[in-house]
């Protein structure tokens, strides 16, 4: 193991960032004003970012908090997207039911798949998550009757958001903007819940498991049960993110579930900093923005992504937030000295 001052810090908020400012509230308010202050393109970008943020934070519950390396997290994103999409498009179920159903359905799938995965040690765990993820992909790709096969499910309807006309200030917004605001609220609530979970006694036990699973067993922790619980929670929230994504991108397609997306979300998480709760959202924002900027200039986005990944691994293992944290601590120390 590397030096103790490793990049991976515990989930308990050890960030030396100025605490006095309510950062999350400020960011939320800024995001909320995008439909008015920004263009349709900005709304599109913002929605992409917040959905990916939720997806990445759900992965980090496994990766950063519990120490479970899952290469198949996109499976849950995909299941959520398909469940919500199928319910809304094929069966005309309203969003208010389809959305929680997506979460529950994904949680059920996570319970079953997770049961098998947590029984395996690190490497095999990662491979089985990958195998399950590809099985989901293969099913989505081939099951024409239900999932639309390789054609997918285009034109998922928007939820009924006419009631927003009654709210002052929201009357003139397009349906896309309204959905963005709805997503923002749902994602904010989800993140708040996840934050609570990470800081709870349950979360503390998870960090102990990450640190030393054997010792955790000897202080009375049923390690597998806790890992499975984390797996289900992470899967459920990934499913919710997927459900929103299906509506946002006006369709659900099999390539949403391809394993390269699992790699992408993992890179986002590490780019932001997997030792910090708000690392993954920062990573999501950075990656989505970078992607947009770079694909304007070149088609070699993979190369850039690979280079960023290598840079992270060799120079900035703590990610963006980790880098800021280190910088801030150093500044504070020099100021004191």
């Amino acid at each position, binding site marked *: 193991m590397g030096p103790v001052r490793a990049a991976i810090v515990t989930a308990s908020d050890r960030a030396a960032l100025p605490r006095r400012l309510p950062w999350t509230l400020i960011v939320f308010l800024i995001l909320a004003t995008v439909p008015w202050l920004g263009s349709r393109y900005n709304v599109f970008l913002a929605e992409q970012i917040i959905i990916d943020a939720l997806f990445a934070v759900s992965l980090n519950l496994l990766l950063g908090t519990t120490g479970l390396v899952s290469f198949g997290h996109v499976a849950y994103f995909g299941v959520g997207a398909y469940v919500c999409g199928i319910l809304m498009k094929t069966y005309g179920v309203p969003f208010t039911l389809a959305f929680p159903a997506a979460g529950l359905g994904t949680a059920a799938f996570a319970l079953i798949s997770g049961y098998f995965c947590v029984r395996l040690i690190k490497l095999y765990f990662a*491979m089985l998550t990958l*195998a399950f993820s590809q*099985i989901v992909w293969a099913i989505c790709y081939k099951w024409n009757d239900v999932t639309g096969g390789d054609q997918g499910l285009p034109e998922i309807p928007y939820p009924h958001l006419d009631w927003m006309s009654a709210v002052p200030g929201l009357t003139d917004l397009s349906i896309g903007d309204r959905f963005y605001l709805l997503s923002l609220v749902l994602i904010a609530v989800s993140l708040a819940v996840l934050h609570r979970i990470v800081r709870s006694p349950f979360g503390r036990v998870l960090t102990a498991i990450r640190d030393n699973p054997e010792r955790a067993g000897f202080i009375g922790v049923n390690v597998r049960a806790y890992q499975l619980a984390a797996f289900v929670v992470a899967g459920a929230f990934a499913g919710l993110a997927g459900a929103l994504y299906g509506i946002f991108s006006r369709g659900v397609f099999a390539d949403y579930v391809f394993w390269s997306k699992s790699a992408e979300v993992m890179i986002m998480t590490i780019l932001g900093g997997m030792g910090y709760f708000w690392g993954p959202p920062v990573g999501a924002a950075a990656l989505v923005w970078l992607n947009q900027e770079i694909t304007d200039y070149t088609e070699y986005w993979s190369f850039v992504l*690979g280079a960023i990944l290598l840079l992270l691994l060799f120079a900035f293992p703590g990610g963006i937030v980790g880098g800021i944290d280190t910088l801030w601590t150093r500044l504070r120390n020099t100021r004191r000295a």
Partner: protein
Amino acid sequence: MAPSFLFSQFMGGLTTAMFLFLIASGLSLVFGVMRVINFAHGSFYMIGAYLAWQMVEWLHPSGEAFWPAALFAALGVGALGAVVERLFFRSLYGREELYQLLFTYGLVLILGDAAKFIWGTGQLSVSTPPVLAGSVQIFGTTQPLYTLFIVAIGPAIAFGGWLALNRTGVGRMVRAAQMDREMLGALGANVGTLYTGMFVVSAFLAGLSGALVTPVQGIVPGMDVLIIVQAFIVVVIGGMGSLWGTFWGSVIYGEVLSFGILIFPGFSLFSVFALMAVILIIRPWGLFGRPL
């Protein structure tokens, strides 16, 4: 079902199997010694294919240059492996396995686009070397000579590898490293050189298989990703780090794929991953592997 048809399917499966074995053997080797899955192994394979095409272009597009081109390609990829291991991979050894895995994935991204940049996105092909360009009739089916060559090479390499591992001094070290790396270092063996060596051999094998596949398959971007997933499945079935495991894993994979398609056309895509999942659930270390 006519026996000749069955034989044809069988040979098809065997060909796939032997190609996969050539590639997967390197992956399994690196894992056995270094305990790391090299995602970039598929990229090495792809670069081997491109390099072979390139050499054929430069030397003599008619096909006589195939053998030196294949050798050059394999050596080239071996050299690439040496550079990657020495310059980058080395510094990640003490770190978490996740970082090592992600590094190899980063390589996949970089090498994939590099190949696209150098050779474009179109499909390239190499003609079969004249000496193997014909075919023979066996059991009422027409088998291309080149296919038979590949089917023969698989077991040859497996046997050669087995000999190397069990009858040479270096092989002994490799087997010792597979069992206990720390001990080996403590005994004074130069573990660093061993790792580099293993990585280079693995890359060489990947490059060679890439070169050898070119007469049979088109060279396209994305072949790196396609092959690594299959190599992965093979190594899981057979058992990480086991040479014979990889061999038989490839055969099982090849034949399941070949005959599975007959029973149920959509079968193959789903079934291979299902097979992988089942093996991981029941016996994670594969048919021939050892519990970690």
